[in-house]
Each structure stands twice: as C-alpha cells, then as structure tokens.
C-alpha cells in the first residue's frame, strides 16, 4: 500500500516535470509523457520510500507554500552576509565546524534541511550522521550544541517538521 502511493507520487512528479519541460498541453505530448512517466516509475519501483514521506495533509501543503518565501529570504540574507565578509578588506572570519542535532526522522526532510542550511547565512553541511549534523560556519557565534542548534536549525525545522515529521 505504501509502495503504491510512493510510485503514484513519483509518477505525478514526473508528469509535472514533463509538462514544464514541454510547456504545452497538446494531446500527443500528454500521451507520450504518461507512457514515459509510467515506464520510469515502474523501473524505479524499489527503494522509493522517500517519496511517500511527504504528509499530504492540507496543513503540510500550506506550510510548504510558506516555506518558499522564507527560504528565498534566507538565501538573499546569506548572500548579503557573504558579500559583507568578502568585501571587508580584513576578512573577518571565525571559521568552525560545529555539531548540531536535528529532530527530523525522515530522509527527505533531512535532505531538504541540509540543502537549506547549505544555502543560508554562512553555513555549509559537511557531514550527516544519524541525528547529528556537522556544519561549517564562516563566522561562528556559538560552539556548544544547543546554542548552535537554536541559531542554525530551529528556523527551518519548524516548517519541515510539519511537512515531513
């Protein structure tokens, strides 16, 4: 049952990408797209557990929509931060690799969390080991686990917990 829903979700994703690629709803394009997506979804039917982790509840969908502007805001903020560091003549660096903890259990949720951390102010995920994330921080403000977790992970986790858990 779980497998069927994962395959269906992959099929839907592929169809959406196919229509984005072609940019048209003509009958022949849709037919070829359905056949292709079905074949690919069938070939990848094993090991698709990550696809069924998204909670399909309305609240999760709403959070996903809210997540996008939050993420873009953080992306711009991170670039301004990097700009300030790079353009200062004395290079005010204080690099450190800190350890933080995440509460997310699902693999997809952790992937999105790590990707988001990489693209936001001054932080880069180096290694993911179980519930521990090791993060390179250009201007480290806190070195102990709890303070670093609060300042790096908490903002995203709030959203992702609703979406993936």
């Amino acid at each position, binding site marked *: 049952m779980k497998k069927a829903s994962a395959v269906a979700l992959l099929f839907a994703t592929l169809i959406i*990408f196919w229509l*984005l*690629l072609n*940019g048209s709803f003509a009958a022949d394009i849709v037919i070829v797209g359905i056949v292709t997506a079905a074949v690919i979804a069938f070939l990848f039917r094993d090991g698709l557990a990550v696809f069924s982790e998204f909670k399909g509840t309305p609240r999760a969908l709403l959070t996903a929509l809210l997540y996008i502007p939050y993420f873009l805001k953080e*992306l*711009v903020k*991170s*670039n301004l931060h*990097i*700009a300030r560091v*790079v*353009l200062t003549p004395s*290079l005010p*660096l204080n*690099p*450190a*690799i*800190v*350890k933080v903890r995440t509460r997310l259990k699902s693999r997809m949720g952790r992937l999105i969390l*790590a*990707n988001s951390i*990489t*693209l936001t102010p*001054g932080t*880069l*995920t*180096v*290694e993911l080991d179980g519930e521990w994330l*090791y993060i*390179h921080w*250009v201007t*480290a403000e806190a*070195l102990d686990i709890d303070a670093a977790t609060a300042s790096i992970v908490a903002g995203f986790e709030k959203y992702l917990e609703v979406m993936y858990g």
Partner: protein
Amino acid sequence: MTISGIIGGILMLCGAAFLLLAGIGLVRMPDLFNRIQAGTKATTLGTLLTLAGAACLRPEWTLKLLLIGLFILLTNPISSQVLARAAHRTGTPKTAGTVDRLADDREERP
C-alpha cells in the same frame, strides 16, 4: 523601452554582481571550506537572478528558465555537500584556529 525590459536588465545586472562576488570570494578566501561557501551561495543566487531577468525580458521562455532554476536549486547544494565531505575526509588543510568538532568525533570513535 518598456518597464519590464528595464526591470529584467537590472535583475540580470544584480545576478552578475553576485557572480562577481563569488569570483572575488573564490580568490580571496583563505581555505577550501570558505571558498565552497562563497562559491555555492553566491553562484546559486546569481544564476537565479539572471534567469529571472531573462524571464522578464522574454516572458514566453519563463517555463524553461524556471526549470533551469529549479534544477540548479536542487543539485548545487548536494554537490557542494558531497565535495565538502570528501575534502574533509581527505584532510584538506583548514585555516589556523578553526574549531573542528567533526575531526574530534572521528578520533574518538573511528
């Protein structure tokens, strides 16, 4: 000259400025991890802004440009993470004074 054309041009200019920032960061930063930071973030935003500018200039290309942006947004962070992990494992030198919790943990339980 239309308004959307000017907005598109300005967006492209902003994107190019962020790309320049990435270039300066690559040259100026002292060690590999800081260079990856400058490289990943600034190029991602720079490319996205340029694509948005092109979408303003030619609205009929928006879907393709959106797809390119989505692809970059999905793939670029993964590749820099994998690279940072590999570099850390092979013991790439870090700037003096870097606190490294990961190396400490590796030593404890190899």
